[in-house]
């Protein structure tokens, strides 16, 4: 019996040609690819750090391009969004909650019936498409220092507790160093 054949074809199972001759090379190449650096058990894919600069600069270029398109699109949308909010708020203030019942068909919903929790969950579920960036664009000519918030009514501890509970995006805290 051909010895070579014995080891490459056994009981109907076949092995690609030269599989065993190049096995060591492929195995060690694979092991090298799997990881290089390791710290306390944590490994990093091979060449990860070598290509990192290029990938980050590519991401920045892509983001810059996308942002240019996004700003144009949202600015036109924003006008309608805030205009409608302003009109609704104006009517609401003018007529009062009792008169401002929308007698439309189904569903019969009034502004007063919309719970704050529903508005919160609407925002929490990501249905409000405006980002912090869009909102900041809207108020870019407003200086934060000019806004008075009656600080005596807000205790420091309450503010810290609120921020640690609610704040997820830390961008606002790192813009200024």
């Amino acid at each position, binding site marked *: 019996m051909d010895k070579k054949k014995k080891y490459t074809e056994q009981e109907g199972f076949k092995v690609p040609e030269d599989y065993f001759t190049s096995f060591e090379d492929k195995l060690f190449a694979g092991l090298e690819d799997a990881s290089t650096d390791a710290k306390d058990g944590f490994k990093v894919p091979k060449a990860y*750090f070598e290509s990192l600069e290029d990938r980050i600069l590519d991401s920045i270029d892509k983001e810059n391009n996308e942002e240019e398109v996004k700003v144009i699109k949202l600015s036109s949308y924003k006008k309608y969004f805030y205009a409608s909010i302003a009109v609704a708020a104006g009517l609401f203030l003018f007529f009062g909650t009792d008169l401002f019942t929308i007698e439309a068909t189904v569903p019969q919903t009034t502004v007063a019936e919309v719970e704050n929790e529903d508005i919160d969950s609407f925002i929490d579920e990501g249905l409000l498409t405006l980002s912090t960036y869009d909102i900041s664009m809207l108020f870019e000519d407003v200086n934060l220092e000019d806004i008075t918030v009656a600080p005596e009514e807000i205790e420091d501890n309450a503010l810290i507790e609120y921020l640690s509970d609610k704040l997820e995006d830390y961008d606002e805290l790192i813009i200024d160093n």
Partner: protein
Amino acid sequence: MISEASLIQQLKNKETQSKAFRLLVGTYKEKLYWHIRRMVLNHDDTDDVLQNTFIKVFRNIQNFKGESALYSWIYRIATNESISFLNSRAKKYGISNEELQSKMLDRLEADVYFEGNDIELKLQRAIASLPEKQRIVFNMKYFEEMKYEDISEVLDTSVGALKASYHHATKKIEEYLLSN
């Protein structure tokens, strides 16, 4: 070697920005990678957070006033990005941050990019049992071997408070390791 002041100036200048940013990434990528990795544990998540960190550095460099070292500022962004990432993950799964830590550790055992032995895994479990702030302080001091003064700048916490945090963290880890 370029001075920090000169690097900042080049980063703020449109013409030299790209080259300077490449230099910045090259200088800090590994340190920041390990800083983030110890918080989020998984390689792919670390990669996402690291990229976001550098993108935020790039976007906000014009606002950097040099009131702290550039290094501290970048570390602060990386820390905040990691915390944000963990919070949003916990919220996405509808679980607490403590439950998320436990879930992440269960996954770590099957992670192809983790080859730690039983002791290393046990240490990670002990670290995960710490409150967030103590966990960050412990990682920065124990693994990254940062000075208290540098950690103080990054976390905006006094050196005294950091020493107390580290002391409590080591005690808790010791207790965990002895009782498990």
